[in-house]
């Protein structure tokens, strides 16, 4: 695919300007931060509590914002116009995803700080968070491509957000309902398991299994996004 830095940068700048003036979407960024602050006040002191606002950031900031940005481009026909310019789909998706990634990195960092989480191994955790962000961006891309309008997008993205961000909660209930054991393999659960392992004495497997699981989820979801694109965007 034909990709150009100039064009990616132009798309990213455009997304930044549009996003900063789109208050309905941009104010969503504040929600997880408010949550993080409140949890801190309530005396959050376990990894699973620290991860509530972090997971919320992934679903509300990463997935939801990516999804609604793409759905809006479709609804307003701006995507079609971009596709008639020399911008390739790669330029458009990378530019937009890069923008959402930057917003995610800033939000997650602030959420970690506000909730009072001091990770024992920041380096490994940062890599896992970054890989998770890549997955949640793919998830938002899929929802955005699926939806025909902004309205539809915000409905489609809800169950997806619930399933993927409340994995850890399902895990807590899995002793009562064994079927929920499956939720252990969600990226959000793996991220939590990794973070918990990092606090104590951890083995190679404790790090690699979550990392690989998250990478596999990311790969599969990006492949799925590409398939949806082919199906939805060619008429």
């Amino acid at each position, binding site marked *: 695919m*034909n990709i*150009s830095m*100039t*064009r990616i*940068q*132009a*798309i990213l*700048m*455009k997304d930044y*300007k*549009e996003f900063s*003036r*789109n208050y309905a979407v941009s104010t969503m960024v504040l929600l997880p931060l408010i949550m993080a602050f409140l949890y801190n006040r309530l005396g959050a002191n376990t990894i699973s509590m620290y991860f509530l606002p972090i997971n919320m950031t992934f679903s509300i900031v990463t997935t939801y914002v990516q999804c609604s940005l793409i759905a809006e481009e479709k609804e*307003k*026909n*701006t*995507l*079609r*116009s*971009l*596709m*008639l*310019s*020399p*911008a*390739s789909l790669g*330029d458009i998706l990378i530019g937009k995803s890069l923008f959402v990634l930057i917003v995610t990195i800033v939000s997650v960092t602030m959420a970690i700080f506000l909730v009072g989480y001091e990770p024992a191994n920041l380096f490994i955790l940062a890599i896992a968070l970054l890989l998770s962000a890549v997955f949640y961006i793919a998830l938002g891309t899929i929802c955005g491509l699926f939806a025909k309008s902004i309205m539809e997008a915000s409905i489609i993205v809800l169950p997806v957000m619930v399933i993927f961000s409340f994995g850890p909660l399902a895990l807590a209930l899995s002793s009562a309902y064994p079927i929920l054991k499956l939720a252990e393999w969600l990226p959000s659960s793996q991220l939590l398991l990794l973070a918990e392992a990092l606090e104590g004495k951890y083995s190679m497997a404790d790090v690699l299994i979550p990392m690989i699981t998250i990478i596999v989820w990311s790969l599969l979801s990006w492949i799925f996004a590409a398939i949806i694109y082919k199906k939805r965007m*060619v*008429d």
Partner: protein
Amino acid sequence: MNAVIDVQHLKKTFNNETALQDVSFTIKKGEIFGFLGPSGSGKTTTIKILTAQTDKSAGNVLLFGQHASEMKQSHNRKRFGILTDNSGLYTRLSIEENLILYSNLYQLSPSAVKEALDFVNLYAERKKKISQLSKGMIQRVTLARAIMHKPELLFLDEPTSALDPVNTQHIYNGLRKLNAMGTTIFLTTHDMSEAEILCDRVAFLHKGKIRAIGAPKDLKKEFGSDTITVELKNGEQEIIENGSQDAEKLYQWMQSDQVTRIYTNEPTLGDIFMQITGSDLV
């Protein structure tokens, strides 16, 4: 070969409904070619196929000697510009910000934005947000975006449908200037006078079929009844053929000083469209 567009036996169906059937035409470099037809006749569908936004069902479609599907390539997208009724502009951005985005996507020099704004007479209003603009202004911004990279080939889908007469005239002048610099223009319209003013050649499209094709004056010659009306002093109106056969009659009337007024009944393109297709252009 100097045909910029060469379409042969093009057919397009949408789930069993035929939108285009056996459409053939060629457009030479430097021509302004008009696609005339009422709403639903297949004008937009033709442009979508030519610009690789949708696939044809059958036939042969070449642009610059390449298959239409090749127009998806970045380097080919730089060769054409397009204006459609869907502006595809970012409503929270200003006119200028929208054009800057596209000048970066086409990798143009910064002066291109100002030139494009001048072309559509919007430089003074460049800081306005798209959400605050009238339909006519949006159409002008879309046109500015379409011509900004100085394409060899320009597709205009009903370019003046939302414009007032002053801006329409301004755009006509601009298009003629572009054309004089070598730009080939493919425009669709249901405005016959627009076609007559701008186009070197036109095709009449009706229910997905081309019913006639040629220079406006040739179509008039071929299909129009070429007559002259003579008003006489006794109040009578005589209609005579525009040719030597009726010249004697006219000479007699003039000799006897009976004539008050003479005018030709040259048909408009709209009349001819009506005559060929049996339907109006709206």
